[in-house]
């Protein structure tokens, strides 16, 4: 779990889920909301996909449908989250915008589900791994959002403004995360 948060951070080490990472990291509050949404989707998706994999796909020998089945699950979960957020916090819904439905195609979520199966984690291991990965994603997202809020106040040279400087910052952040390399074996 520690490994998933720090060492193999999805965003900063595996470069998965960069789309929302760049998209919704303009404000800390939004980043926190997104982090929570992703955490929820990741955890539940892992649980559901694990069951589907071992109780549906494997017994019937149709593992080749894995991707489609998983995406189906994730998509419906995202829909659910979207509706809940729209009801509970319209402001957050507004600021997340297009990136909320895009969790569906978020490679981090699918990648996580697939990785879980690949690594042959047990159910519990899988859930722990998922929570770890999601927390890692949230941590990276919130840290990055903080940095970008400060970037807002900086007179960045015109040609680097916007995504360019954000990518440079993300690179430096992932550089710092390299320090955790070798922290936990495996």
């Amino acid at each position, binding site marked *: 779990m520690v490994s998933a948060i720090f060492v193999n951070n999805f965003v900063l080490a595996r470069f998965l889920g960069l789309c929302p990472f760049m998209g919704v990291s303009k404000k*800390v509050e939004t980043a926190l909301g997104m982090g929570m949404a992703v955490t929820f989707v990741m955890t539940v998706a892992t649980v559901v996909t694990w069951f589907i994999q071992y109780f549906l796909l494997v017994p019937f020998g149709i593992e080749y449908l894995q991707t489609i089945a998983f995406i189906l699950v994730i998509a419906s979960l995202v829909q659910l989250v979207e509706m809940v957020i729209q009801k509970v916090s319209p402001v957050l819904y507004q600021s997340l915008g297009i990136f909320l439905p895009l969790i569906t195609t978020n490679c981090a979520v699918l990648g996580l589900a697939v990785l879980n199966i690949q690594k042959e984690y047990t159910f519990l291991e899988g859930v722990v791994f998922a929570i770890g990965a999601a927390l890692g994603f949230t941590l990276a997202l919130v840290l990055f959002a*903080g*940095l970008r809020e*400060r*970037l807002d106040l900086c007179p*960045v040279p015109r040609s680097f403004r916007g995504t360019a*400087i954000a990518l440079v910052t993300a690179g430096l952040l992932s550089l*710092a995360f390299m*320090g955790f*390399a070798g922290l936990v074996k495996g």
Partner: protein
Amino acid sequence: MEQVYLSSSPHIHSGASTPQIMRAVIYSLLPACAAAIFFFGVPALAVLLIAVLGCMACEVVCQRLMKQPVTLNDGSAVVTGILLGLNLPPTSPWWMTLLGAVIAIGIGKQIFGGLGYNLFNPALVARVVLLISFPVQMTRWTAPTPLRYGVDAVTAATPLGEWKTAVMLTGRLPEGLQGGTFSYLVGNMPGCVGEVSALALLGGAIYLFRRKILTWHIPLSYVASVMILSGLFWLVDPGKYPDPLFHLLTGGLILGAFFMATDMVTTPVSPGGMILFGVGCGVLTVIIRLFGGYPEGVSFAILLMNAATPLIDRYMRPRTFGVVRQGGAR
């Protein structure tokens, strides 16, 4: 009658200025530079010179390119250069040092808008980029030979590196590492140009304290948390983990705690935030040193906490005068 000036109050100023602060930092680093040249000779001098000149040149080039006024006079490029030089091994080839200088100023600082806006410590950005890109050159250490001229030095491992290798191979603390305290204190050991002489660094730091440019918050909390945490591990298994003094005096802790982690631009502004920053650096340093893949964790720890600085600033604000915290009395 000449027109008078009008401004909003106050009408007087302390006279403090950015160049003044930068000059003081440069003076405070001179003892460490001198010690480095004493122990590592001409190569160390070369590394320092290339780093400083490289940073200054790169600053000028960047600002010219962006058609901004050249602010070499504020001295910040010199400080970055010295700090970068002090953070490299004395054996660094000239091209690597120069590349480091370009990274430090270009990517570390100017791309964010110049002085005051960089998110990460420029010298550390350069050091870490170099460390990851050129692991061989960045970890080739030489034994100190006072007042040496040539480059034909004896290669040796840093105390921290020696410990790490030994623990990896045998799981035990190697003989002969303990008890070198005096050598460690004056700097008679292999290591980066500037990190070896604790005495010289502390001398510079005391000067900065007296000039009121450093406050105690970050250095003290950083050093204290490293000492306490490493002390706990040492008490648990003194055969495997080195004692706190070893942690303090070998490696870049003192350089880091007093000069790198206290870089004003990339650290929190509130006293509480500074303490949190220091503790965070300390904990991360010990974790990376004891359990990570790298023998030294100071640079990474500071960079990571640099990244957390905006969040710390956001959540660690001093209690405003006349505001009673929620849940307090009254």
